[in-house]
């Protein structure tokens, strides 16, 4: 999986659910992985290092701000059906992320 994505020149973040103990741990790791991926491309600065991510909505907002300048980004959740202590709606919410993130970018562009 990693090889395919690295060959396709798209920035990506891979999160392994086996290593994430709770749902919140998963979200924090997702944000950290996204920050690491974006950092590889451009200088982002210190504020992103100390960000907290308590819930899906905060993750949503952070991702909107983080991915504002990006054209494409891929997030991979490995083994998400085996994630422990997950709120039951997590998966559907994650699946619909792209709608909200994209809309925010559209509003920014309009401005």
């Amino acid at each position: 999986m990693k090889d395919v994505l690295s060959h396709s020149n798209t920035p990506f973040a891979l999160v392994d659910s086996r290593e994430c103990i709770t749902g919140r741990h998963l979200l924090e790791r997702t944000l950290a992985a996204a920050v690491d991926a974006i950092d590889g491309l451009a200088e982002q600065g210190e504020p992103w290092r100390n960000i907290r991510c308590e819930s899906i909505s905060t993750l949503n907002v952070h991702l909107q701000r983080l991915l504002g300048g990006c054209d494409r980004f891929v997030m991979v959740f490995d083994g998400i059906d085996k994630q422990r202590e997950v709120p039951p709606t997590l998966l559907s919410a994650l699946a619909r992320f792209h709608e909200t993130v994209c809309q925010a970018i559209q509003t920014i562009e309009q401005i």
Partner: protein
Amino acid sequence: MPGDSNYRADLTGSKIPSLSIIFIVSHPKPRFLHTSGIPHIFFPQYSKDEAIRILSQNSPNIFRTTPDPSLEYTEELAAEDNRWVWTRFLSVVWESAARSAARDLVSFRAVAERLWRPFVAPIEEGRFGTRDFTRLLADRRKLFQDESMLLEKIVPLVADDKPAPSLNGETSLFPSDFHVAYNALVHDVPYFSRYILCAAYLASYNPARQDQIYFMKSSERKRKKRGGMIGSGRPAKNRKISRHLLSPSPFTVDRLLAILHAIVPHDVPQTADIYMQISNLAALRLLLKSSVIGGDLLDPGCKWRVNFGLEYVSTLGRSVGFELSEYLAGAAE
């Protein structure tokens, strides 16, 4: 790539393709994402040939230290031999364990690596050549019958004080930390199944013409003279090879039942479902069919034979109080 996972890509279509989310999932529930029409890719499990071809890309070495260069055993020859033996070894491991118990690539590789070192130890010692695969397999087949290879343990199993007894008097094949307690060799089969197994062993290893001597109540006195006069009073011919070393001979189910009724010290009750227990033992592969006529398991013409050795069945017999050696033809060593 994981062998059995669904890969779901939730790609954006008409909106700006900024964020794509991919889920790698092993067992998705029916209404997983509460949406419909999710693009996905399904990865089926590897077949035997594919798994073996993947794993034979890197073969481990047979010899841990490079042998003497004066033997003209170059690196290319060594690599060639490694690959040759490793590929055949993988297919044996697949047939014995991995097909049922270690199906995915990671555990298949783990089992193969765990068994490799004990398997090629005779080649390293010099007892077999590198291309002598069939004889090596016959020598090491006990490796594949033991199920402890499937367990992964950090703490070694406790070794008994006495060494593990084995069928041919050899020392245990595994180092002491793989030693399984000897009692584990006897499976937990029910009471009548143990008698069925003893009767099956006797049916396989006693010649049919001596059945009358051993199993009829009226001839109990004759049984005491093992190897004595048979029939018209000729002394018994000495067999050149002890019968236990030969492969078991086939027997029919009714002969098995007759012997069973003879050796069980009390009456076999009607409620003991003998046929069901026989078919369970066949499913456990303790009894094997020699010939199939019409495909019916309990057909009277169908012949069976046993799939275990003397040690196993004498332990089994002793556990129900049945002394096997009294009934065995020929000297039981």
